[in-house]
């Protein structure tokens, strides 16, 4: 744990000393909650349709696979026509593409960003590395199986998968969403302790709250 | 005669003044001022002088009845007495000062007493 997250004693302007505990005072401590679908099925269907037609990808290239996403914005592939856009902030994104191998160092950032996205949110694992470690299967500092750490909705296999594969993957994801089966966020909340334990097993310098709101 | 006296008086005064302004020794300055005082006193007396008249002493030589036309003006004579007295007083005071200054600093150089300035 880094120094600035340790408890510290500070002196107020009135000269009274008191303790500041950053993890408690600066971060929300609430655990993630499950959010049920809309009460009316027809409403939830409409919502799922809208969600599937409005996939906002977090612009976070976690590994070498990110290079395969760029062509999607170009005239050749033009993912926009399928309702796919890139957003620079996790708050506004609902799709997280883990693009290729994931080092432990990056995993920490991925977890933080994932947790900062709002429910419902989807994770797509891109490339073999997210499935079984791929060519990094015996690396000491990459994770081998993304699903242990985040609830993955869809894998797009390949090393690397071509942009066409990604487009196909988006279509599959849309189907999953429309069927109401893309409830990864709720899954994460439900199995929060399990995920957290897995994450902490590989991330040794855990220097953040358990859930990053 | 009066003119000679006047001229002498002014000369003495100027000599005294010059001396007071150029000598750096306190005692010399005081002496110079006495010289200047003397010069002024001569001037005063000379101003009161009228040609062909006598001293303003009303005795047998000058009857009181003719006094107005025979004696010189008595007022400057009276004034000069006062002036001399005052001059003596001031000279004495300056000497006292010089003594105390010498006691304090063991020096009579006017240039040594310049700590108050600006």
């Amino acid at each position: 744990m880094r120094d600035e997250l340790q408890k510290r004693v500070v002196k107020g302007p009135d000269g009274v000393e008191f303790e500041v505990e950053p993890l408690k005072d600066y971060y929300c401590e609430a655990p993630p909650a499950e959010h049920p679908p809309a009460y009316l099925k027809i409403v939830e269907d409409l919502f799922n349709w809208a969600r599937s037609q409005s996939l906002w990808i977090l612009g976070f290239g976690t590994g070498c696979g990110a290079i395969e996403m760029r062509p999607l914005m170009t005239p050749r592939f033009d993912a926009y026509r399928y309702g796919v856009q890139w957003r620079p902030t996790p708050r506004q994104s609902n799709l997280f593409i883990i693009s290729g191998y994931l080092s432990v160092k990056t995993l920490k950032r991925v977890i933080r960003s994932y947790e900062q996205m709002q429910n419902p949110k989807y994770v797509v694992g891109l490339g073999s590395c997210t499935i079984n470690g791929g060519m990094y299967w015996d690396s000491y500092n990459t994770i081998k199986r993304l699903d242990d750490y985040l609830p993955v909705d869809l894998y797009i296999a390949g090393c690397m998968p071509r942009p066409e594969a990604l487009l196909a993957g988006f279509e599959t994801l849309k189907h999953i969403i429309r069927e109401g089966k893309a409830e990864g966020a709720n899954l994460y909340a439900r199995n929060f302790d399990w995920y957290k334990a897995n994450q902490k097993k590989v991330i040794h310098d855990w220097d953040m709250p358990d859930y990053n709101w | 005669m009066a003119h000679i006296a006047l001229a002498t008086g002014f000369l003495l005064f100027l000599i005294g003044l010059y001396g007071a302004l150029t000598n750096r020794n306190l005692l010399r300055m005081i002496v110079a001022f006495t010289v200047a005082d003397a010069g002024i006193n001569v001037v005063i007396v000379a101003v009161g002088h009228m040609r062909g008249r006598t001293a303003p002493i009303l005795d047998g030589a000058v009857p009181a009845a003719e006094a107005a036309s025979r004696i010189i003006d008595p007022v400057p004579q009276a004034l000069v007495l006062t002036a001399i007295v005052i001059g003596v007083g001031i000279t004495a005071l300056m000497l006292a000062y010089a003594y105390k200054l010498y006691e304090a600093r063991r020096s009579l150089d006017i240039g040594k007493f310049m700590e108050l300035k600006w």
Partner: protein
Amino acid sequence: MDFDWMKIPYALLTLFIVVNYGMLQNALIAKIGARVGRRRGIPIWQNYADLIKNYSIRSSITHGVMYYLGPVFRLSGGVGLLLFVPSLYGSEMFSNLSFAGDLILALYFIFFGTLGMALGAAESGHPYAAIGITRGLQQVSAAELPMALAVFSVALQYQTLSVTEIVAAQQGGFQNWTLFTNPLAVAAAMLSFLGSMMRPPFDVVLAPQEIPIGPPTEYHSSYLALMQTNRAIFPIAKIVIYMNLFFGGATIWPEFFLKVFLIYMVSVLVGVVHPRFRVEQSIRWFLVWAVPIGILSIVLV
């Protein structure tokens, strides 16, 4: 005070028309941009999907009261601005709530939403939000000046501050438009217009690659939905003012749509061919190029 209660449904109707038109126009303009880039671009209904999606997000967070109110201020600003200005000239139905005030009210009400949004974004505590706001405020402070001068010039020209009367004075053929009767004012105003549309070269506020989208960084779900709605209304509300002041206003909805679209396209056309100005560059640009035109317009009117 006798108040015509029918004004309320009429105003809501205007709002409905403009919201839908705004959503479609935004998509259309995105599509045009895509076509220029030889892409197909987003579907024309994409903005509806995005809007519903954002309302359908189940969870949300709040950073505090002002953060919560920020989008409300923002959208109130847009709606209010739209309703304080008559949409169609000569139409009692679409004169909206313009009885409340004249041109000056509209001009100052522009800042209502901006200010509220700035406060809300600032409460999120995100440094990018604060940086983005300061950039926006600094840029707009210089960009407003030519607009103010142009408005003043137009008010002097027509000797009125009432939007309706200004439009009335421009009726009877396009040669009566301010565009032709007072071209300098229009030039100054249109340069200022570029600065207020958040498009290149004046988009340093959002600066997506540098301070990920600036003020709204922390906004999401229904907050973002409100802001998206405002994105549909606010530019049009502003353009309506430009249209009324400089381009003869509109008497029917098709004319309204056409003029709004064309005016909007000015900023788009400039935007697609220019890189981004830094803040101090845009301040200098407005002061050096736009303000002298504005000054000339008030001197010569």
